[in-house]
Every structure is written in C-alpha cells, then in structure tokens.
C-alpha cells in the first residue's frame, strides 16, 4: 500500500470501517443467515472495495462488518503475518477503523482474518475466524450451471462429487485433493472450506470459534458455527488423511527454526540448495522460539 496515501479530506463521509452502515447491516444479516443454516452459501451484495476482487475482499467485508473499536485484529496470509496480502489488509483496517488494536499473537486476537490457513493454536469461544474464499462452491467441478448446483445443494445431492473421489482412488490409489477439500457441515451442506490444506480441515470440526467464510467476487458468505460437525467427504472404508511430513526414513520432519514436529510445514530451498522445512504458522513458530530462549 502506498505509504503516503491518505483518506480523502472529507473523511467524515466515511463511517467507521470504511463501509457505510447499510452495507455493514446487510453483511451482518447475511452472516446471521449463514450461521443459522450451517454451510449454506448465503448471497450478499459484495461491495466494490479499494482493491481488486480476488485479493480478499470477501474476507475484508466480513472483518469490516464485524470489527469494533475494542477488538484486537490479527491478519494472516498463508500462515504468515508479514506477507504482502496480510500487511495490506491490516493497514487498511488500521486506517479505516480508528481504535482497533492489531496483534500477531493468535491468543491475543479477538478477530482473525486469514488466507489459506487456520492457526495451529486452537481457537477459543471468544475468537472469530474469517477466511477469504476464491471459489465458494465445491460442486463447480462437476456441474457448470449454478441453478442446478443450487438444487443439488438443497437436496444434498453430492454423489457426483464422490464419483470424483472414486476416480482419484482408481487412478492414483489416493484422493488427490490437496486443498479446498469438500467438507460436509452439520450433516447436510458440503462446503469448499477455502484453500486451507487438508491439515486444517479437522480443525473446523467442533471448533470452539465461529468460522466465517467470505467470497467477494462470488458474492457469498457461509459459516461453520462453533461446536458444529465438519466432516471431510470420504468413503466409509477409505479414511481421510492429512499431510504427513515424513522423510524417506519415516521420521517426522521438524521445523528448522523452532523444532516443532506437530505443525504444518512449508518447504524452502536454502542458499546452499538443500531442502529445509519450517512452520507455516509464523506466530506459532516464534512463540516456540521465545519459550526456548
């Protein structure tokens, strides 16, 4: 974001949180409906934001509609607080919501907006997780017509999605979906849980925190309410599997910075050309290092 940029002079015209009150009210109404019908893709009038669609406008509108002056906000992009998307969104909220505190500590935040990861540390009942979603409908891979997809969702007709999993097992002996794993919420609607890795899918299940998912370009909001079932779509005899991070000898790889063996790891090539692994959740990694020091 341009560091010299300021809001227009007549900034009184902007209400707290950039969006006008009517827009926030409409988003909140959509949130209530989404929570009341777990997993249902609630349509809403996604506003133009001062950034391109696809840069997290869906998540940002949720955050702006939810945030209050007494909130503490954490913004993550792929687990990191310091990547471009996270910093831009955080600065935008700081600029348009005076009084909102920001943090990098998961447990200190009351509102967490995230792109493609759920924090390693389990969330609590007083926390809210907002996920940015590029493609909200898991059925889009098997049915092109949105009208027909809506009927399929209504009737919980997900057989064709399972056929895709069947074909994967036939061809590769394994389901090959690495992220956006179709997940059934509260026994009915199947959602696209945004591009979180498989590792994070079990965290949605019976989560203590409310998870809200917002798709700005596709104009949909949906939710996994607290203490709600969120089950990945599987066959009875082929259990769901998360990423395993074992090396050739079968040992669990550890984070090279903090030594954690219980976190989702990113792979890097170090200057010497060797593969190294470190925690994707930077806050989790740093807290572990601080505790060790």
């Amino acid at each position, binding site marked *: 974001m341009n560091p010299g940029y300021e809001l227009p002079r007549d900034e009184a015209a902007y209400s707290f949180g950039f969006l006008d009150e009517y827009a926030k009210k409409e988003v909140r109404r959509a949130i209530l409906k989404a929570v009341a019908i777990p997993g249902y893709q609630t349509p809403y009038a996604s506003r133009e934001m001062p950034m391109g669609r696809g840069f997290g406008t869906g998540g940002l509108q949720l955050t702006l509609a939810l945030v209050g002056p007494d909130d503490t906000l954490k913004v993550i992009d792929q687990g990191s607080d310091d990547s471009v998307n996270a910093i831009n969104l955080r600065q935008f909220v700081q600029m348009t919501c005076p009084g909102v505190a920001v943090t990098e500590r998961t447990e200190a935040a009351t509102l967490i907006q995230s792109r493609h990861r759920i924090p390693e540390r389990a969330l609590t009942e007083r926390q809210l997780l907002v996920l940015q979603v590029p493609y909200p409908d898991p059925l889009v891979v098997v049915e092109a017509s949105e009208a027909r997809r809506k*009927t399929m969702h*209504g*009737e919980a*007709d997900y*057989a*064709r999605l*399972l*056929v895709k999993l*069947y*074909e994967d*097992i*036939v*061809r590769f002996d394994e389901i090959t979906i690495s992220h956006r794993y179709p997940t059934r919420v509260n026994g009915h609607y199947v959602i696209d849980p945004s591009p979180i890795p498989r590792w994070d899918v079990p965290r949605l299940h019976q989560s203590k925190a409310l998870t809200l998912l917002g798709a700005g370009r596709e104009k949909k909001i949906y939710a996994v309410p607290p203490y709600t079932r969120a089950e990945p779509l599987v*066959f*009875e*005899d*082929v259990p769901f599997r998360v990423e395993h991070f074992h090396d050739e000898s079968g040992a669990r790889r550890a984070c090279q910075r903090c030594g954690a063996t219980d976190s989702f790891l990113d792979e890097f090539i170090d200057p010497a050309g060797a593969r190294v692994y470190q925690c994707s959740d930077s806050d989790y990694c740093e807290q572990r290092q601080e505790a060790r020091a």
Partner: protein
Amino acid sequence: MSRILEVRGLTKVHGRGCPLCIEATGPDSDTNICPHCGSVVAAHDVSFDLHRGEILGIIGESGSGKSTVVKTLYFDDAPSAGEAILFDDAAQYELFALNAARQRWVRNHRFGMVYQNPHLGLNFNVTAGGNIAERLLMSDVNHYGAIRTRAKELLARTEVLEARMDESPRKFSGGMQQRVQIAKALATRPPLLLLDEVTTGLDLSVQAAILDLILEIQHELGTAMIVVTHDLGVIRLLAGRTLVMKYGRVIESGLTDQVLEDPQHAYTQRLVSSAL
C-alpha cells in the same frame, strides 16, 4: 401377478395448448401439431398397467410419442396431465405428485434407464466403473470396496471385460457402451427398467447379444421393463404385451402375438405387412 406400475391418462403437450388441441390432432387428423395454436401433442391419454417381471413393448414411428412416455416416467420431462402410480412392495408412489427430491430418490433407487444414445446415459469423462459408482453413490452406498465389487459383478454380468473397467467408455465400441449403460441401470437392482431404443444403430450380431442379455436379466432378476422401439423384431422377441402408438395416441394394444398376427388398426396392419 402383482402390478408394479399403473399409468392413467398420461398427456404431454409442448407449447401453450388450446381447447381444440386434442380434437384437432391424432391419427384421424393425421397430425400431432394443433392447427389452431401450433402446439405439439406428443402424447395424449396413454394408459397402461405393468406387472412384476413383465416386458411391455411400445412401438410406433418417429414422433409417435413413445419416447415421451418413457421420458415422463423417468422424470426427464414433466407431463401436462395424467397420473402414474408405482407399487413398490409395501409403499405406493404417486410419481407426478412427488416433490423433486422424492422424484430423484425414486429415479435413483427404483428405476433404471437405458438410452438409445450412450452419451445421454453415461458420463464419458469418468471411467466405466465410475459411471456405475455414480449410480450406487446416488443410492447411498458409500463404501469404496463395496462399490468396486458390485461394479465388477455388473460388468462381468453384462460381458464387459473387467480389465477395461477403469477406462473411459469413450474408448468402447457402441455395443460395449450399451452394455455399460445396462450395467449402470441395473446397479441398484431396480424393479423397473426403461429401455429406449437400446439396439437401434447397432449391427445385427451385437443387437442379438444385447437382446439375449436383456431376456436373461428378466429371467434372473424378474425385472419389469418397458421397451420402446420401432423394430418389430425386438418387440416380437422381448415383449409379452405391446402398445402401438401413432401421433401421440395409443391406437392398439394387447398381447404381442395378437397385435402382430391379427392387427386391427389400419396403421398396425401397414406396419406389420411392411416389415422387411
């Protein structure tokens, strides 16, 4: 014998329809396009009963409405009027009064359909096994091992090589595609099978093999079937009873032997005498 299906007054009009449509169309008027409003009366007042394990043939020329009857029964098309009741063990379903979700349930669990064109009945983007899996998954079988076993069984039964189970039906011959369609239709052991011109366009030896297969299935499983065709040979071989349709009306019905040996309606007489 117990009834499995009762169809009464089934009517399908394409277009807005007018009070004169019915009067002005049919075999006597020699058209099924209403001269007053231009609507097409695809089928009018089709009534029949089907018993358990019976094969009913519907014969007629192109555009006589025979496929329309089957399509409305399979919910591919909504009828304009009429009712159909499916008798299923203890339950009874008034087919056209069910909501969309229940219709889908009946279609997936109790009916099987084989289309003339395999492109309608099969998904060519998934394997032959995947096509059968789709049908099983729709009827709530959610066990990968069980699906594989059942698909293997069905393909073996319909004489498709097991080795080709994990190939796309796109690579199959026409006869094999038709056999995969039959396997898919049989996946849920439906009490009623709808066959729409299954052998049309196949060469004679393949036709014979498919017809044999259909008869064997009927003997083994006691599946009731409605066979739609314009081929007298198919009707003679398969069907116990036959309806003859023209311009959307049933003009003659009865035991197949009777209809073919002693046709009453002028059109049926012409049809039988013109058979090659």
